[in-house]
């Protein structure tokens, strides 16, 4: 799974720390999600999508291997 959180953050002009605070996780977790090291739960994915006001599929995308 890939994601474009980094791009969305840049558009909204918020830092990893600010996003982390908004959805109640650590900065480390946002960082590992952005770098595709950690796959968030559905709840967390929905929360992230809500921050950016977009459907989940626009932020998280399946890859061929998935």
């Amino acid at each position: 799974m890939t994601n474009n959180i980094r791009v969305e953050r840049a558009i909204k002009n918020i830092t990893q720390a600010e996003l982390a605070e908004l959805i109640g996780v650590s900065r480390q977790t946002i960082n590992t999600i952005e770098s595709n090291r950690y796959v968030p739960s559905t709840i967390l994915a929905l929360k992230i999508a809500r921050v950016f006001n977009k459907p989940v599929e626009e932020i998280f995308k399946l890859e061929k291997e998935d």
Partner: protein
Amino acid sequence: MRTRYLFPHWSRYLGWLLVFVHIPIMLIKKMLVGEHYEGHAAGDTGFFTSDHLFFIATALFMAIGLFLVAFSKEHIEDEQISQLRLDSLQWAIYVNYGLLILTLIISNDRVHILFLNMWVPLAFFIVRFRWKIWQLNRLLKKEESQA
């Protein structure tokens, strides 16, 4: 998120205190009694004798200390931390049973096997869990220094 069955964050410090208080007391006792001290003096198997009380005050305090350190909440207890916790627990159980089987095969010393079993899973869990968190922090710092 799923933070049930965990101790509050401050209990980690209490846990470390118990672990570190245990070490000098145990060393002093070993020096006084000799190398072969194992909780009970030879031939002494009574309850609540001074040796038995001492055993409770040291070995069990260490186990409780490790327990508190292992299962206290992080500052931010999110789902990634929960997953690291579970992964580390799985590794700790693997290591513990590997060691248990190995020691049962090569040793007859039941008392020491029991002792080993008391702290190996907790100690291994703590080391593995903290190491993973350290890795996450290092990754974050690296990213921040690049940005």
